[in-house]
């Protein structure tokens, strides 16, 4: 008998109390985001998908020196160098395995040619492991950009590591 009474009290008295909280939230600003329609603004230092820069004349900046691969703590970068018809050194194979990559940006720092950068792209899900191995063609930016844009990035990186801008 006592239990039945207790249950009645709960239904009549306590349940509306709980629902009240729910109702209140209907009129509050939601804390989730309507992704992918809406997106969270990024931190200025966000490190996303890599890209390979080009010179303003369209040629590749990367000379396949191997320093990014040497710096990479996750061993995510693989490359094979080659020589083009002008005797210049460039990458024949340049791959980054995005499943291994921990997005630390060490490659960006190591690069002496200012070729590899971590961009702001983070939506690159695919359904196969192979799909996460990005080839040089996928990483190279299609069109060269103005140098000033990424010079700023470099300056920022150098500042973080206390290396003065010497050029």
């Amino acid at each position, binding site marked *: 008998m006592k239990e039945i009474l207790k249950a009645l009290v709960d239904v009549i008295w306590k349940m509306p109390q709980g629902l009240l909280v729910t109702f209140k939230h209907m009129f509050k600003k939601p804390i989730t985001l309507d992704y992918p329609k809406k997106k969270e603004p990024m931190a200025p230092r966000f490190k996303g998908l890599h890209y390979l820069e080009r010179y303003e004349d369209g040629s590749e900046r990367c000379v396949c020196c191997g320093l990014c691969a040497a710096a990479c703590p996750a061993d995510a970068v693989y490359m094979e160098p080659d020589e083009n018809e002008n005797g*210049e050194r460039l990458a024949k194979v340049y791959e980054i395995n995005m499943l291994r990559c921990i997005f630390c940006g060490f490659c960006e720092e190591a690069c002496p040619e200012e070729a590899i950068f971590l961009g702001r792209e983070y939506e690159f899900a695919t359904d196969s492991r192979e799909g996460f191995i990005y080839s040089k063609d996928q990483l190279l930016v299609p069109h060269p950009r103005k140098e000033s844009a990424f010079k700023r990035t470099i300056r920022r990186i150098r500042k973080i590591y206390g290396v003065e801008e010497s050029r």
Partner: protein
Amino acid sequence: MADAVENKKNIAEGVPTVTLTIDGRETTVPKGTTVLMAARGLGIHIPTFCWHPKLKPMGSCRMCYVEIEKMPKLQVSCALEAMDGMVVLTDSDLVKRGRRAIIEFILMNHPLDCPTCDKGGECDLQDQTFAHGVDDSRFDFQKYRFTEGTEGSTFDDLRIGPEIVLNRNRCILCYKCVRANKEAFGEYDLGAYERGNIMEIHRAPGRQVDNPFSGNLVEICPVGALTNTDWRYKIRVWLTQTTSSICPFSSSGVNTLLYKDDHQQKIFRTTSRPNDDIDDGWLADVTRYGYQIATSPDRLQTPLIKKDGQQVPATWKEALEIINKRLNEIKDKKGRVCIGGIVSPSLDNATLHSFSKLIRVTLGSNNIDYRTQYRMLPKEPENVYDAMSARSFKISDIDDSDVIVAFGSDLVKEHPNEYLRIRKACNFHSASVYSVNPYRVKSADVARREMIYKVGTEEVFLNGLCLAAIEAGMAEGGDLKEKISPSTAAEAAAICGVDAEHLKELAAAMANGRKVTFIAGELVSRSRERLCISSALANLTRLLGLENKGQVSILPHYANSFGAGKLGLLPQPPEGIRNALTELWGAWPEAEPLTTDGMLINMKKEEVNGCIALGCNPVMLYPDREFARESLEKLDFLLVADLYETETTGLADVVLPLASWAEYDGRYINLEGRVQRANRALKPRFESKPGYEIVEAIAEQIGDKLYESSDQCEQEISRLVESSNVQPLPDKYFDVRPAEEESDEEYPIALFVGDDPHHSGHLTEKANSLFNFCGEAYIEMSSELAKKLDLKEGDSARVESKVGKIIVPVRISTTINNDVVFIPRNFSSTTVTALLMRKKRTDRVKISKVVN
């Protein structure tokens, strides 16, 4: 003080010494030692750029600064002799400042293009800038950039030779390359030009840097100014693994290091692994670039079997079954003895030894030989030739010999490392070198006296030496004089066409020398008259007591020639080896033994019906191509294992792919009798298998497993090697009656055949880099002869002998100056052996111009 006492103990008695203090530690060194070496002896490292252990110091980079008490300025330690009582500081503030200044100075014009530079990661300049340099530059002006000859290119790289790229901007002018080229190799195709800021290293005007030692220049360059094309832009050095190996092409057993990548299963380059007893850290180009025979895409991929006259790919199982069936058929038809085995002396001990067991025990034949490139081999066992070609010899003993005789050998082509030793003995110890050859060779450039004897008079020359020594009263001849002809030195000199005075001079030098090294080469071992010549050499050795005060040897030619002899891969091995083998195997075949010659003759007579050829190519290299080919064609069954398809595999019923030396662990015995190991660097390519696995598989298929494990085989080998000693020379003089040299009016010109300086054997033409140095056969002749024949450099010449003719381009020799010609034997596109006849002592040809 303890150091000083300790060091003094290691210095030989009677050597004058000096005692000095370096960084507070006292040390005693022999007089004449440099401060740098004294410091190294104490384990104190002084950075250097231009110093090289095997070159004379030059003092051009000034990186090795040290401070010396009472000397007002910093001193270069690499060129400063240690003096008694010197007090040296290697790490004071002044020294540090000095080094910093030097680095800053060197970097003044350095382009700092490490990202594109192949030296990155192993560069002395990188390391030392990191350790001693400053991190900033005070120079405001433009760096000087060399662009002459490289206009329009981004990196200013200049190809100065088939395999060398020069970037003058990176050069720090240490002169190591030029010095090594001149001092160690005697080559002048690279030099330093201009002065001051615009000083540059460059190839000599109109020349290519293509000398047979050019790869070393790249290796010793402390920066990336000289790089080689095989390594160019292929991989970073820190991504490679190294495997220690030895050279599979030279009988010296030069130590090498293979740089490979396990992931790509590829070798990227070879560098030296300095071993002062053997190679001094220098590699001939054939050693340096020869690794490419392993990585060439032309390698045999699967076994091939002949079906309806066509060779078709097959599995190992099929191939082995056929081998078993066919060998059995031959056995049933004729009994066991009609099978022959020939094997390449470049293969490792385990392969050679198990092959020997397969032929001798499983197949019960005595026909086995590793000498497939020599004509008319002697049948008698324990002959003086075998004895003379396996004397005890030490390469490092060349260094302090005061008389060195190179006889019948084009050293640069046959024994490049011994040539470098001889140069060193000349440079550092002023040895007297005598070069005795039928034509002028490159190695004669260090000779005090060069003697050119008439073609085919080797034994007369040696007899002449004996006679000259006896006549001058330098030695007790005993009954020697009656046993040899001619009877006077003057007569001998006249027959050989050398000056009698020179003959006397050489005899005197050898008789009076403190330590004599006498090297005989391929012109002796390949000669039909090798027995006669070796007897003459044995007489000379005994007469002058050369073995008591030096060394005499007919040097073997291939990586494991010496080992093959020791393991008894001869039809009739010396008594000791034979007994040891019988004891090990419990059996010795009864049949009459045949040499390669004998086998080929019997093949032609169809008395030998089956043959197994392991890693060798007799059709191309036996000195009578038609004869070898016809003989092998007559066979019922020919089994060939090799790396590539060759002319011999073309005749085979079954072809098996053989693994290259880099693809298994193998031991080799060099010409000193030193057992060395070449480690496995790669997996066997395609379906190839190492020699001993092939032999074992055949034996197993026949139903007679040779060894339970490879250890068992190795044990047998080490017992054999330990038990066989150097054969003592008999205590008597040999009869040496030189045969009359036949001449031929119709074919007037003597032809010599040997290796090109960049090649060895039949495989190296598959190595890309070596092919770039030289990719086709040529005929080398003196400019006088060319003029007589109306030929110019590059013209096509028709070369005819009694048995064949070939057409080859003409090359004007820089050395040959008499009427002989040379054609290399390493190229399958033009096989010079087509001109040779096995019964001839001297090959003679006539040459005419091809008019098109």
